[in-house]
């Protein structure tokens, strides 16, 4: 077996050194009835690279890749171009095959990139400090809610009607398990402002999203003001990190915590994971933050170096009193994010965001010009909702036959909210003029 270097002679000689007869001797603590005699039934035996590759390639061929043609699916994950350099960097063995940097003397590579990641996320969100990443945007959102409850010592969490419903579900689950009350505002395409009215003296935080799940961008400054007047926090969520190159970021709106998805930078679609959660907050809240933090220090020779820090918040020190149970973050995806951001630079990011916005504007014009199609999102970055005169599921199936993956039907995300004729549509820098023309032409045929 190609991954196992021990030879039968090695095994025999090692057993002799140990004084054991066979490997069975090591398993004598296992209850007799649970000791398996033969190999587990029902599973195949080992295979060479070629055979494995053949099987996996066959499975892969049964999927329609986003790059295979016009593709307009967003709603929390986005098809962006990832520079070849990014993948080369994350495939370096020194980054790919190392562990959490517990031994900083031989992990400065990981630690310095995490410090760069934190700096980039803080700047992007316009917040004071960022952590070294979370699993994804939805778990970052959930952790933000319970952090707000810790900070305010209050128990009511209010979710906007534009929050991605999967983020809302993940947040509700974690909050309710901890005995917090979650109030979900009615689903609304342009309702983030409603959060301002709902906040009261028991509210720990309000959670708003911009751009929201329908693509609507909203200045949450008014919500922040209302929340702060009542002693509550504003958690500002985003699912499209590229938007922050152009759209008002959480920090400029007075958010206390920013939580979002970083997949758009450097990370492929990967059918939903692994992704990278971004988490940032105001400086005064840093000791209530979940997750790893990397900080600057010096070594014994006085040279600058980096270490994991403030670990007294964390489970391996604080156990049942930790701020979160998170152990692993999303290190390699954070590195991909950082490498992509580094290649773009501030000016490049803004330009990329502009290209995304313009592609969406052109798409909205092309689709909105069709008789019977209505663009529902009043202000948007790179995605928006449309209403079609025919059932959305049927529309998408017919578009698919025409080779166009036309978006997400809103009823897949909101099954009980009577949005059967609504489709969420996204465009990015990958969207070409031809793609837009193909979509409009195919949709015109259908309706």
């Amino acid at each position, binding site marked *: 077996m190609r991954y196992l270097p021990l030879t039968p002679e090695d095994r025999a000689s090692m057993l002799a050194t140990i004084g054991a007869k066979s490997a069975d001797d090591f398993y004598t*603590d296992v209850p007799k009835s649970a000791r398996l005699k033969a190999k587990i039934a029902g599973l195949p035996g080992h295979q060479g690279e070629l055979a494995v590759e053949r099987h996996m390639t066959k499975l892969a061929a049964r999927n329609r890749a986003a790059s295979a043609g016009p593709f307009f699916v967003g709603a929390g994950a986005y098809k962006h171009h990832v520079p070849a350099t990014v993948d080369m960097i994350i495939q370096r063995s020194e*980054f790919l095959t190392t562990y959490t940097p517990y031994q900083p003397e031989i992990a400065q*590579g990981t630690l310095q990139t995490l410090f760069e990641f934190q700096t980039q996320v803080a700047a992007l969100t316009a917040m004071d400090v960022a952590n070294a990443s979370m699993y994804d945007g939805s778990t970052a959102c959930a952790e933000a809610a319970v952090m707000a409850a810790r900070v305010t010592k209050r128990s009511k969490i209010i979710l906007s009607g534009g929050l991605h419903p999967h983020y809302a579900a993940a947040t509700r689950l974690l909050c309710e398990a901890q005995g917090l009350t979650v109030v979900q505002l009615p689903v609304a395409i342009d309702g983030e402002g409603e959060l301002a009215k709902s906040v009261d003296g028991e509210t720990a935080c309000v959670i708003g999203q911009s751009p929201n799940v329908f693509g609507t961008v909203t200045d949450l400054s008014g919500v922040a003001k209302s929340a702060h007047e009542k002693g509550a926090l504003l958690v500002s969520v985003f699912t499209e990190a590229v938007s922050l190159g152009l759209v008002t970021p959480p920090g400029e709106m007075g958010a206390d915590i920013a939580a979002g998805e970083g997949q758009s930078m450097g990370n492929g*679609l990967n059918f939903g994971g692994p992704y990278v959660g971004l988490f940032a907050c105001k400086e005064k809240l840093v000791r209530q933050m979940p997750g790893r933090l990397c900080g600057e220090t010096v070594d014994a020779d006085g040279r600058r170096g980096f270490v994991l820090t403030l670990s007294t918040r964390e489970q391996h020190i604080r156990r049942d009193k930790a701020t979160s149970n998170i152990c*692993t973050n999303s290190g390699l995806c954070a590195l991909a994010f950082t490498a992509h951001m580094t290649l773009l630079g501030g000016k490049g990011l803004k330009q990329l965001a502009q290209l995304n916005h313009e592609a969406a504007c052109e798409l909205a014009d092309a689709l909105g010009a069709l008789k019977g199609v209505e663009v529902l999102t009043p*202000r948007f970055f790179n995605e928006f909702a449309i209403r079609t005169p025919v059932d959305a599921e049927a529309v998408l199936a017919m578009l698919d036959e025409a080779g166009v993956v036309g978006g997400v039907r809103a009823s897949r*995300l909101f099954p009980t909210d009577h949005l059967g004729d609504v489709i969420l549509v996204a465009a990015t820098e990958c969207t070409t003029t031809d793609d837009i023309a193909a979509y409009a032409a195919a949709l015109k045929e259908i309706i």
Partner: protein
Amino acid sequence: MAMNTQGRPTAPARASSGSIETVSGSRGLLQHEDLLFEIGTPETTGVDLPKPKGLKSRLGGVARKVDTGLAGLSEPQAVRHYMRLSQRNYAIDLGFFPLGSCTMKHNPRLNEKMARLPGFADIHPLQPQATVQGALQLIDELATWLKTLTGMPSVAMSPKAGAHGELCGMLAIRQALIARGEGETRKRVLVPASAHGTNPATAVQCGFIVDEIKANARGRVDMAELREKLQRTDDVAGIMLTNPNTCGLFETDIKEIADLIHKAGGYFYCDGANFNAIVGRVRPGDLGVDAMHINLHKTFSTPHGGGGPGSGPTVFSEALAPYAPVPFVTKDEDGLFRLVEHVDGDAKDSFGRMVAFHGQMGMFVRALTYMLSHGADGLKQVAEDAVLNANYIQARLKHVMTPAFEGYCMHEALFSDAFTADGIETIDIAKALIDEGYHPMTMYFPLVVHGAMLIEPTETESKAELDRFCDSLESIARRAAQGDETLKGAPYLAPARRLDETRAARKPILKWTAPAPESVAAE
């Protein structure tokens, strides 16, 4: 071939040894490298993008006021920046990485190649299900492997890491108790003192109260204390137990523990972090387990990536299966795979949704590739070699170091610091290993052993590598026993010397800030 006509010296000159300072700060192959923000500018870019057309904005005025100001680099600069930083990392591809409880095994490159097939890497979690049948089949196949290897009837694939899998298991227990009408009364979860910190942290995240159980002199659960704690049963939610445990030992009384907890009306959560020791040889389903997460990044070779992404699918017994989270994959009678995404119908008792999408697909591809490569026969050999390697290390070092417990170990060898002279700490031994070219073992964990040193070799290492490592550690251990003060300064040969963690925590600097302009600073 060029003639050496000018008498260029071809042998080293006699020169003084010792360190020299360089103008560049580089040290030969180890290049000095500043932070990206100190070498780049916001105008620099390594990406050629088309020029925007200048269309009218549809942002409705919700536009960013202050640019990010983030530095960029050209492509060659960026490549060098990250290459140079990479040289400061130790990695499993470079050498032995015996970090206990982390299972740092070889990460096959075939896994990486397969994960990058566009049919896996370039598909969207919300595109029509008819266009991702291969992806859903892959999830279903991996699920079958996990259920068969563990002997459990059901598996939740969406948890994003080990601790997230723990959360999944404990939320299912919580939901089962609620369904029984005992959600408010059964709040107590028993957790051994030797448990990984995520266990008690997870229990609390789910609204439970942690009740700690001591370890006995053999490093296992103290059964007398367990029975004592189960005198009262009406408040018991369950137990969280790692098996093999964090001392690297199999819990001898595991079936009795399962029976006792079930009799008390609770559930048995098993932390599967150490599954590598028993894969193919023992099925947790035969031990009375109700829920267990599996770290695909440990047992099934997906790369650790410097701290994630992980993946923590969680298997369930019949008792907990109905409460598993959405989404999950089912196969219809017509052979089509389907995602169940909402809490109704097939999933009416589900505790809900933990994450935005379907789990760590990129890790699923790698793990299945690894399983197919090894097969059921190879995986059994994996466990045996991992355990053999650990016992070999224990046997070679037990005369110079202090084994924490008597007898054979499973996949990791645990030593206490009892053999060291006064003033020499576990950390000194760990850092001295760095100078020898090794990643240190896990230190000061588990907490039940003083100055713990937890060594997990995995099946990846050859006998020659183990012998070299044991020679090094044996020598360091002898120096530690003799009180060799030079150990306190180690490492001497790493890219950095020991770092000041106290200073980092006292006044945290968590991001780079531009220095004040010189004209201002000069005033």
